[in-house]
């Protein structure tokens, strides 16, 4: 009975192809809109996460002062090398730690000059920042220890200063001293904040301290943690250790900040999530409207087919059999709309993701949910017309013209 009712419903839908399609259109658009919005939203979130993780994996950035971003508050004392060694020795969750000093400077090579960021750090800097070398090598132990004038440059710096030339072995002038280029970084492109990550010059920490900043201060620590699950614990331990080392009493606030990349991701993707939710909600309203469209057509259909219903009832169809027939018809219509909507959404998402340069992530949950929701709309909005059909008086229905 159920199977034959299903066939009957399909035949009824085929009988009025255009009308059935127009009836479904509301659901099709609703489902397609919801899925596309959510899929693109997820893609955008993923893109942000990817960009942030390109900063470095399981990365903690420790800066003096409480403010986020560049320009730490001046009152907070900077870190010293002893802090670095203490963290390395007392927090076993830390895999590597790169102390850094950073300055914005103008560098010169031949007749060209370029303003960039010069960072002094150790070889650990490459690991914590997920940097690979495109050519050349990292700093040698002697270079690090002796604070020799060598540097590794980013792709943007190479392009601006050397054009098509191979920079290895050549030198750049930084604040009156000459510095040999020993390595070239693999390009990473824009960061999540929109800055050019390749616009950078790195040299050994000691070199930068001695020749540029002129002090033993360390302006930030980039710490790579053993594994992602341990980030919070590592963060807690480092905070405790630094509070102790910086003589902060229990009722004082930290005078340094520990930022992890997950926090950055969350901050950046919260906007995207809000947008996704809003757009998804708007799209869901169109699903509801689609449901009302189905109810409308089903009511028309019941009126049109009053005589048929009368015949069925006279022949001995039970109330619930007629109810089931019309209900199934509505559900088949709406589910079919859902399936078409999913196909449309898949095509639209892939196309739009390509145009917007976002990754396309197929989300089975939202597809399944949308499909079930569209079927549920069929039940919800099909029930009233179906009940109306089932409760017709067979005599009146047979007399209906």
């Amino acid at each position, binding site marked *: *009975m159920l199977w034959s009712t299903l066939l009957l419903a399909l035949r009824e839908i085929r009988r009025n192809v255009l009308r059935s399609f127009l009836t479904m259109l509301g659901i099709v658009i609703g489902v397609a809109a919801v899925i596309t919005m959510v899929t693109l939203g997820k893609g955008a979130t993923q893109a942000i996460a990817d960009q942030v993780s390109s900063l470095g994996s399981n990365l903690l950035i420790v800066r003096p002062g409480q403010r986020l971003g560049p320009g730490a508050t001046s009152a907070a004392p900077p870190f010293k090398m002893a802090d670095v060694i203490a963290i390395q020795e007392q927090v076993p969750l830390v895999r590597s730690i790169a102390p850094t000093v950073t300055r914005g400077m103008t560098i010169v090579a031949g007749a060209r000059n370029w303003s960039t960021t010069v960072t002094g750090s150790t070889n650990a800097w490459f690991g914590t920042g997920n940097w690979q070398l495109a050519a050349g090598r990292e700093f040698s132990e002697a270079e690090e220890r002796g604070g020799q004038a060598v540097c590794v440059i980013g792709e943007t710096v190479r392009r601006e200063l050397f054009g098509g030339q191979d920079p290895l072995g050549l030198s750049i002038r930084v604040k009156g001293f000459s510095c040999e280029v020993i390595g070239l970084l693999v390009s990473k492109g824009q960061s999540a904040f929109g800055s050019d990550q390749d616009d950078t010059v790195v040299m050994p920490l000691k070199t930068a301290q001695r020749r540029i900043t002129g002090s033993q201060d360390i302006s930030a620590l980039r710490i790579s943690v053993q594994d992602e699950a341990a980030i919070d614990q590592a963060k807690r331990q480092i905070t405790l250790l630094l509070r102790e080392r910086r003589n902060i009493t229990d009722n004082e606030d930290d005078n340094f900040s520990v930022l992890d990349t997950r926090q950055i991701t969350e901050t950046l993707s919260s906007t995207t999530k809000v947008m996704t939710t809003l757009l998804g909600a708007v799209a869901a309203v169109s699903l509801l409207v689609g449901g009302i469209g189905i109810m409308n057509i089903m009511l028309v259909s019941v009126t049109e087919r009053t005589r048929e219903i009368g015949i*069925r009832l006279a*022949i001995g169809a039970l*109330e619930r059999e007629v109810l089931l027939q019309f209900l199934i018809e509505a559900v088949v219509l709406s589910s079919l709309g859902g399936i078409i909507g999913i196909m449309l959404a898949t095509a639209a998402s892939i196309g739009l993701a390509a145009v917007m340069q976002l990754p396309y992530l197929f989300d089975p949950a939202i597809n399944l949910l949308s499909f079930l929701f569209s079927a549920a709309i069929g039940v919800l909005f099909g029930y009233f017309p179906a009940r109306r059909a089932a409760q017709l008086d067979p005599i009146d229905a047979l007399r209906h013209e």
Partner: protein
Amino acid sequence: MSENHEPAIMRSNQTSIPLIEFSQVTKYYGSGTAGFQALRGVDLSINEGDFVAIMGPSGSGKSTAMNILGCLDTPTSGSYLFQGVPVEQLDRNQRALLRRTYLGFVFQGFNLLARTTAQENVELPLLYRGEKRSARHQAAQAALKSVGLDGFAHHTPAELSGGQQQRVAIARAIVTRPQVLLADEPTGNLDSLTSHEIMQLLTSLNHELGITVVMVTHEPDMAEYARRVIHFRDGQVERLQHNGGHD
């Protein structure tokens, strides 16, 4: 469906009780002064295997009586026993089950499903009985054959003449092997030649399959085919007439 298993047989040994028995059946439509008394105490009984025509001018209550007979409607008062079962006490679904098990309907306007083949139309009642596909198929073929529509199985009503459509309707009515065939002006939309063919078909179904036939008509020459004629007037049975020579 579990309700479908009651067999439609038990025919021969029930001769003591009439198949259909109305006692003091009334039907009142509407209420108060706007109401209308369609039936005013009708007594009638129809036995197994009978062929009865119901005649009367319009408004005489013959259609109302027919609707009650077909369990499509219930009496306002009085009782209707079908095989000894008081129909007025059955609910909507029980009456539907009774219809699908024991009754077959033929209407004036044929009432076939449009854009549906003859075969599918005939199979429809079996579908509701939950019969298997192959069984439905065979029974429908046999029913179409018995009304002389061999080879028209895949025609839709639009492709058939009025007489052929009515034959499909009759095939649909008898495909379940009902006790009673109820025909409401079965020849009302047909020309006289076709009308006589349809009446001959009904007669042969009555004779050969033993199906009790109850038919409403306003044409005296169609009523001639029946064994008995019940004349209605003003919501009451006016007189009974026996046609000789048919037994």
